[in-house]
């Protein structure tokens, strides 16, 4: 006796996947069950109709465009780019009707290439002797070197494809820096099972989770023996680094997404969730929905592919669950492990004083706008102490004692005289004014791997809201010796500025870089 509500059974029957004996049972049941018989008949008819749907002919310009791109790549070494296709008449005209205009464009393109080649050939020929010219002119055109060897020679100069196999350091498999983490994760079967997924677990600074690193990890996940299209990324939470975790995870998953890896099942909607003011990077495995879904049930650690980067997972657990449900993420993993001791909290408060580079007045004059009123006078202590004194109670990392560049070869010309403020001066600030559209570019520039600045507030590229962020320049001075250029295209205050941020550091001219986001200046 079959279960008429057994969907798998009915599907297998519809698809002809059942053994004869079981199929006969289904048919027997259908004989006595009019509703079942009708449903099966309808579903079968629908399936047949679907399979009989006519195939459409692709527009002729489609493959033409691809071929043009392939030729362009071969000839010029330029990466292929989409070519705008004609729109609006494909259903009413045969593909051939679209060809003339596209062919014209293609011929124009090829004509341009031919003209360039002819010009190059002409220059070459001009340098030859008259005898050689005559000999060439008398040769058989059919045997004249034509585009074929030229094409081949150019093609041979093509750079290696981007996806050429790359050497992957072992650290990506188990980037566990502390014995506690290593022992913890080692007990998880998936970590040691190479057939499930590649693992990238790092408790290094999340700023190390850059696109390149995660891209490597993802390539590893795609490669044998893993052959996985899911990347499992474990990010231990760390207080004061939530923005960076979220941003790093966001960038990482974007790097692992289909935009970069077309095979990837990761899509943008998996990448970043927002709960209130908190940001979370998360990805769920589609495989999870084959399981009976138990709402609000936390499944064991790392059983599915999901990452939550959270500063304080405990306090947002219910929110996370709610968010996960509404975003079709069936599993939330909250890692409550303590942040690694190696990561120092660099949480710095937004200074209560906004004094500008030198003085509020000069900054105001330079900006042509009103500046906030300075806060109460800072205590008469050192400048660094002033900054700490203006802080809300948070751990402050002292400014490095050595501000000399780690790579002196990149050192810019020494400034004439460092601008040493009086000991009790408030922190000085470099103000960069950008709008929301510019911010990702600026952040990307300042935060790029190896020359990272720490964001004081939670601002992730592509996920910004009008607010202010403060970059702690001082604690990253060693990194800034790499010649990070100051983005002159952004309005800066005050002008003129040194060419690079490390010059700023060497001049000891600024304590803060503040980014003000102003969409409607």
């Amino acid at each position, binding site marked *: 006796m079959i279960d008429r509500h057994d969907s798998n059974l009915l599907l297998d029957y519809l698809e002809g996947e059942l053994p004869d004996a079981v199929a006969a049972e289904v048919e027997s049941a259908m004989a006595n069950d009019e509703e079942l018989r009708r449903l099966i008949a309808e579903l079968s008819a629908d399936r047949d109709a679907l*399979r009989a749907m006519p195939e*459409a002919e692709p527009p002729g310009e*489609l493959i033409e465009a691809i071929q043009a791109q392939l030729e362009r790549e071969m000839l010029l070494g330029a990466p292929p780019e989409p070519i705008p296709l004609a729109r609006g008449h494909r259903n009413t005209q045969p593909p051939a009707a679209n060809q003339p205009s596209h062919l014209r464009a293609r011929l124009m393109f090829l004509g341009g290439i031919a003209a360039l080649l002819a010009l190059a050939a002409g220059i070459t020929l001009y340098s030859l002797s008259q005898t050689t010219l005559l000999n060439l002119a008398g040769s058989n055109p059919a045997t004249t070197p034509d585009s074929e060897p030229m094409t081949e020679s150019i*093609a041979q100069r093509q750079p290696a494809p981007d996806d050429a196999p790359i050497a992957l350091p072992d650290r990506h498999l188990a980037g566990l820096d502390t014995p506690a983490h290593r022992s913890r994760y080692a007990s998880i079967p998936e970590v040691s099972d190479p057939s499930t997924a590649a693992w990238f677990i790092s408790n290094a600074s999340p700023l190390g989770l850059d696109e390149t690193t995660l891209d490597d990890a993802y390539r590893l996940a795609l490669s044998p023996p893993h*052959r996985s299209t899911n990347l499992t990324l474990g990010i231990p939470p760390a207080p004061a680094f939530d923005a960076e975790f979220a941003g790093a995870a966001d960038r990482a998953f974007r790097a692992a997404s289909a935009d970069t890896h077309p095979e990837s099942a990761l899509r943008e909607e998996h990448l970043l969730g927002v709960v209130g003011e908190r940001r979370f990077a998360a990805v769920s495995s589609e495989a999870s929905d084959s399981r009976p879904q138990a709402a609000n049930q936390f499944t064991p650690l790392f059983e599915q592919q999901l990452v939550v980067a959270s500063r304080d997972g405990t306090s947002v657990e219910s929110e996370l669950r709610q968010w996960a449900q509404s975003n*079709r993420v069936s599993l939330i993993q909250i890692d409550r492990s303590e942040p690694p001791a190696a990561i120092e909290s660099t949480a710095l408060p937004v200074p209560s004083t906004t004094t500008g580079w030198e003085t509020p007045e000069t900054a105001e004059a330079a900006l042509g706008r009103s500046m906030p009123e300075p806060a109460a006078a800072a205590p008469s202590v050192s400048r660094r102490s002033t900054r700490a004194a203006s802080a809300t109670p948070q751990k402050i990392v002292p400014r490095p004692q050595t501000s000399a560049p780690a790579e002196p070869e990149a050192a810019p010309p020494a400034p004439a005289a460092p601008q040493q403020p009086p000991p009790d001066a408030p922190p000085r600030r470099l103000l960069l004014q950008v709008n929301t559209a510019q911010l990702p570019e600026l952040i990307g520039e300042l935060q790029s791997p190896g020359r990272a600045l720490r964001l004081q507030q939670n601002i992730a590229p592509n996920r910004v809201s009008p607010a202010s962020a403060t970059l702690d320049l001082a604690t990253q001075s060693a990194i800034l010796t790499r010649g990070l250029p100051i983005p002159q295209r952004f309005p800066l205050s005050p002008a003129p500025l040194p060419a690079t941020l490390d010059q700023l550091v060497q001049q000891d001219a600024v304590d803060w870089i503040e980014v003000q986001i102003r969409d409607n200046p």
Partner: protein
Amino acid sequence: MGEPLAIPTSDAEGSAVSADPACKEASSDPLLDRAIDGDRHALGILLSRHQKRLYNTVLRMVSNADDAAEVTQEAMLKIVQHIGGFRRDAKLTTWMTRIAMNQAISHLRKRRTRDTVSLESTGRGRTTDDDQAASLRAALADHREPSAEHRVETRDIAERLQLAIDRLDDDFKAVLVLRDLQQLDYAEIADALDLKIGTVKSRLFRARLTVRELLRKSET
């Protein structure tokens, strides 16, 4: 670099395309080898063989010829960019289909202007055993026999089918398109969509029920 091959300017192998390009991708397909090695002529031939299948896959997903052409072009450019990383442990057809599907789904999710059938009300996206059984029960309990006068011509059926497909959730639509229109087997669909076979079957049956429900509504 091997001997240059002529790139067909049209779908000269149209019949082969419709038949099954996968049959051409034997494990030792020299054309594929050359394409992987950077031979763009060989890649052009491969793409011309697969373009019709890819285009139709995308077309059924996005249901707009203009969008389908653009999305297919984007997918093919992705293939061009990443063919060097293609691993022979997967079928080229499946690999290309996965790329095309990813492009199509990304396109749909960006577009998001079309109404989709609310599978959520009965378990959108995540089909559980319970809600699937409930839908099945509802389908079985519907006693209406479609009358003969409601049957329309084949062309109209195709149109209504496409409309029904359009209203499916992307995840369900993808499974249905690959199964019925591309006639892939469960394992191939699972591979192309990075799903478990159980998920594929669950979504397929769910999609079939939903399409049936939509067609019933359109018939009445």
